[in-house]
């Protein structure tokens, strides 16, 4: 017989891998269950992202509704108007502003976004209305299209009348959808369309009113829009006008949703990482059970590399099956995501199967599983054939292989590179990967410390059941580290999400409390100011603040003129600072919510004619690179006004009230054209409704913001956001549970001999139950407790650095979370051990061993 040992090639390795996996496949299924959900979440978010990108590309034209939109917040001058009139083959224009609407039949009032439209806009897509023809017919008469939520809220029907300013309009149709808007953006001020030609009669275009002037253009197909836009861009920029094309909308929308899909992808990725820890732990135990087989193979002449490949093939085969199942599940879940996210999207997203997403999900799943699996797998190379003889052999699995450090490094690198791919920033990627690393190290450290403490200090004279339960935490085959990491990360996730949501809600609800301002009246003209104050008092309401507002622009900053700054893009001062219209106020004191950071707050100019010292808000000053002593010349509606920066203030933005970037001292702006904002506190929604009705009837130009309404809108938005976050975090939490179940089941295989022995020696069901419950209760409490500590640290960091507020933990909720997680852990532990409790020992041994 010819002998050639080189002939046991790749196919033999596959055959041996298949043979060796017999009778263990159910255990291997546990490995794959850990990664399925993570890959499903990734494939779902990848698919969602790709479909969204395709939808944006396909639907950008209908999102914009025109080939080009130009807009500004002031009326163009004659020269500019001439240019605007010369563009496009079809053109429309629109004036947009917020104002109060009055439903005549129900006598309800509400802040809305009025859109006064002239022309055939939208040229792509349509205004979806009920009846459908109302989208066209409202333009021909004195009719309005009213948003569907408003119609429902005020019980209005088509044919009813509304009053905007001084003019009554018939409701011509219900507005179901307008181009490029999502549900969330419309909640605070729902849209109402009216024909532009009635705008002047409403009397709402007064000085100080914030009106957006929009010009919509459609070009014939032969026009090179990019070339045309680049030709007029300098003029538009000089005039401080913004423009938007289909291409720029594509870019902006993609960028906006990139952040969102990125966030969802990272949450999914954490689920996958969690699953991979489960895989690593399961494989470690699997290989431990295979030492004898590996040693026999080595005796028979199988090379160490061949034994390694036999198990690698098994693991990768299972990972491939898990990835495929995950991809299928992800593709199914992807059908749900648009339903969950519909309020945040400006269009109905498609749910096509994305093969690219599936390939990426599977690829990423395989790579990350491979590296996590290699951590325990590389020890196979070191299993000695001597294990097959009756000899003492140093355990190969306990030794730290230098290759392991390389693998840890590779895993960190993969996490960082993946995060960089998602977040487009090395710094953010390193922070993300570093945070995960710290969380893992912290949880591992706590687990090791626990084992050491229990072993070292647990009283040896305590009862047997207690001793046995606690000893299970450190004895061979314990699952302490993996369970504490899994439970801890799950708890950290839930705890942080909960704290984040509460922080957001607390941040806005501070203004809802008793004597805080809760109603803002704005666009009050100087002639109306005194009468408005009296009217407020007549209703028994306090005038908490009456704030004058003057509009102006920066003409020169430290000697750099607006013209020069707009021309020179290299200048450090942002161009926007010169372009935008500023709304400033004047007063003689700081507010409760303001704190002086530098300089001296000037209360009033000492002598008329002195250069006033103004106060800048801290972050605004930062953006301008401005400091105390710098000089600015403002253009106050044609009049140049030089000032010196006298102080910089910090503002607590948590209170919802008008906050100003620039505050002038008294004695400068009193004679400038101005309008007012009045702040009051209404005690109830009934008083609020009556007051609003009275104001709208008497002064239709004055708009009101009801804080209660804004708060309920914010609450609603936060609810929706937190639902999306919870939906995605659910994958991580479910993965945590799967890993937990898998770990408990695997530990059952490890412990079964021992439990059966205890049963054989006469231990009762109750005693085994107590031992098991104690072990899992302690693991649950410690894992969840450590996770909650991590969540507190994360929430504190978020509060300090992201929300810039104080952090006060919700102890009762967190304690509840601790108990719930501990309860689930004990339940899973006991539930999976029920077989040992209920069946005769011999039957279990025959089935399981």
């Amino acid at each position, binding site marked *: 017989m010819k002998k050639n040992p080189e002939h046991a090639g790749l196919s033999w390795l596959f055959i041996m891998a298949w*043979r060796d996996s017999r009778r263990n496949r159910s255990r291997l299924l546990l490995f794959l269950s850990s990664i399925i959900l993570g890959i499903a979440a990734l494939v779902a978010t990848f698919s969602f992202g790709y479909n969204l990108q395709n939808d944006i590309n396909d639907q950008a034209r209908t999102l914009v509704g025109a080939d080009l939109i130009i807009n500004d917040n002031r009326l163009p001058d004659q020269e500019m108007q001439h240019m605007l009139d010369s563009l496009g083959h079809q053109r429309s224009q629109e004036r947009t502003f917020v104002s109060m609407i009055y439903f005549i039949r129900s006598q309800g009032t509400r802040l809305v976004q009025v859109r006064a439209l002239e022309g055939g806009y939208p040229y792509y897509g349509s205004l979806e209305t009920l009846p459908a023809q109302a989208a066209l017919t409202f333009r021909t008469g004195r009719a309005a299209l009213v948003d569907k939520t408003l119609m429902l809220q005020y019980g209005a029907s088509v044919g009813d009348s509304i009053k905007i300013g001084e003019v009554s309009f018939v409701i011509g149709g219900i507005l179901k959808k307008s181009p490029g808007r999502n549900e969330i953006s419309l909640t605070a001020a729902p849209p109402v369309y009216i024909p532009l030609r009635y705008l002047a009669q409403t009397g709402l275009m007064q000085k100080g009113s914030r009106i957006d002037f929009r010009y919509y253009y459609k070009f014939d197909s032969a026009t090179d829009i990019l070339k045309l836009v680049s030709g007029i861009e300098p003029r538009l920029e000089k005039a401080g006008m913004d423009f938007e094309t289909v291409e720029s909308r594509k870019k902006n929308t993609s960028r906006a949703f990139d952040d969102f899909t990125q966030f969802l992808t990272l949450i999914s990725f954490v689920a996958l990482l969690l699953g991979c820890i489960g895989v690593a732990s399961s494989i470690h135990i699997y290989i431990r059970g295979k030492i004898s087989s590996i040693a026999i193979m080595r005796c028979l002449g199988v090379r160490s590399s061949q034994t390694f490949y036999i198990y690698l093939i098994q693991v990768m085969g299972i990972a491939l099956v898990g990835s495929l199942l995950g991809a299928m599940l992800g593709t199914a879940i992807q059908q749900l995501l648009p339903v969950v996210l519909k309020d945040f999207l400006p269009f109905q997203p498609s749910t096509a199967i994305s093969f690219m997403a599936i390939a990426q999900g599977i690829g990423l799943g395989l790579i990350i599983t491979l590296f996590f699996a290699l951590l325990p797998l590389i020890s196979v190379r070191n299993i000695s054939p001597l294990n097959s003889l009756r000899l003492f052999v140093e355990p190969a699995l306990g030794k730290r292989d230098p290759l392991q450090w390389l693998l840890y490094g590779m895993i960190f690198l993969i996490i960082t590179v993946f995060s960089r791919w998602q977040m487009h920033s090395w710094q953010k990627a390193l922070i993300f990967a570093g945070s995960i690393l710290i969380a893992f190290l912290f949880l591992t450290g706590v687990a090791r410390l626990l084992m050491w403490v229990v072993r070292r200090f647990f009283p040896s004279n305590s009862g047997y059941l207690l001793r046995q339960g606690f000893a299970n935490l450190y004895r061979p085959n314990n699952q302490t580290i993996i369970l504490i990491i899994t439970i801890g990360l799950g708890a950290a996730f839930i705890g942080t999400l909960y704290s984040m949501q509460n922080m957001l809600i607390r941040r806005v609800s501070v203004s809802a409390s008793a004597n805080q301002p809760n109603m803002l009246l704005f666009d009050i003209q100087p002639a109306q100011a005194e009468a408005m104050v009296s009217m407020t008092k007549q209703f028994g309401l306090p005038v908490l603040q009456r704030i004058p507002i003057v509009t102006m622009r920066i003409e020169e900053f430290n000697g750099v003129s607006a013209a020069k700054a707009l021309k020179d893009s290299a200048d450090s001062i942002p161009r926007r600072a010169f372009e935008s219209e500023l709304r400033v106020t004047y007063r003689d004191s700081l507010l409760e919510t303001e704190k002086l950071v530098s300089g001296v707050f000037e209360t009033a100019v000492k002598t008329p004619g002195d250069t006033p010292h103004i106060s800048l808000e801290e972050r605004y000053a930062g953006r301008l690179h401005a400091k105390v002593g710098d000089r600015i010349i403002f253009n106050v509606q044609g009049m140049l006004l030089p000032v010196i920066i006298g102080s910089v203030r910090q503002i607590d933005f948590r209170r919802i009230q008008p906050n100003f970037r620039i505050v002038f001292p008294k004695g400068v702006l009193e004679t400038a054209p101005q309008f007012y904002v009045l702040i009051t506190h209404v005690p109830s929604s009934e008083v609020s409704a009556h007051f609003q009705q009275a104001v709208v009837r008497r002064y239709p130009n004055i708009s009101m913001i009801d804080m209660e309404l804004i708060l309920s809108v914010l609450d609603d938005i936060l609810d929706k956001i937190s639902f999306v976050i919870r939906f995605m975090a659910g994958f991580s939490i479910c993965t945590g549970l799967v890993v937990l179940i898998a770990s408990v089941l695997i530990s059952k295989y490890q412990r079964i001999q021992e439990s059966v022995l205890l049963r054989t020696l006469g231990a009762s069901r109750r005693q085994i139950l107590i031992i098991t419950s104690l072990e899992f209760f302690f693991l649950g409490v410690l894992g969840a407790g450590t996770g909650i500590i991590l969540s507190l640290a994360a929430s504190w960091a978020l509060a300090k650095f992201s929300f810039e507020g104080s952090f006060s933990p919700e102890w009762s909720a967190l304690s509840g979370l601790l108990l719930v997680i501990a309860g689930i852990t004990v339940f899973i532990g006991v539930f999976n051990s029920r077989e040992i409790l209920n069946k005769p020992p011999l039957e279990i041994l025959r089935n399981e061993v």
Partner: protein
Amino acid sequence: MDTILNIRNLSKTYSSAGRELTVLDNINLSVESGSTVAVVGPSGSGKTTLLGLSAGLDRSTTGTIELNKITLDKLSEDERAKIRNRYVGFIFQNFQLLPTLTALENVMVPLELLGEKNIKNRSNELLDKVGLGGRLHHYPAQLSGGEQQRVSLARAFSNNPKILFADEPTGNLDAETSEKVIKLLFDLNAEAGTTLIIVTHNTELAAGTRRIIRLRGGTIFADEKKS
């Protein structure tokens, strides 16, 4: 006759908990090709360690081992695995069959590693010879101890080894089964002309060999050859 195993100045020391433990001390012996040798001695005398080192399962602390004229000490672990596959067969006290492979597959493994053809037929024949022709597709857990050891015998002879190492091959068997296994072992060995080295406490088994090496405290206490 050729020498198949040549051991010179062999020592093996283990370190455990900071203490040095010398298990084998200055062993010198040669084994001729085709001979049968029993290594006997009390527990802890170093019998199994000697077997493991001779078969290339471990490295000696000092001394040299030549197996089939190949010096094992300088070979890597994978090179020694190749030697084991080509020239060595094993029989273990606790049978050491791969639990997830059938009887037939267990016998086929050494041949598959060699890249042989028609291995199924040869493995079938071997299992027939040991009286397990009807249990080819049974897993080890479905076989009795005696049957498992017979599969182990078939596997040990499947690659036509030049030398066969048996570690207490009857240690886990009852007397009647032991007798059958011993007979089978010697019959197969005689037929194949393989060198047989048996580590055992079983005097009946040792008596069947041509040479008995007695170990005590890690050294050769006696080397008895039958004429």
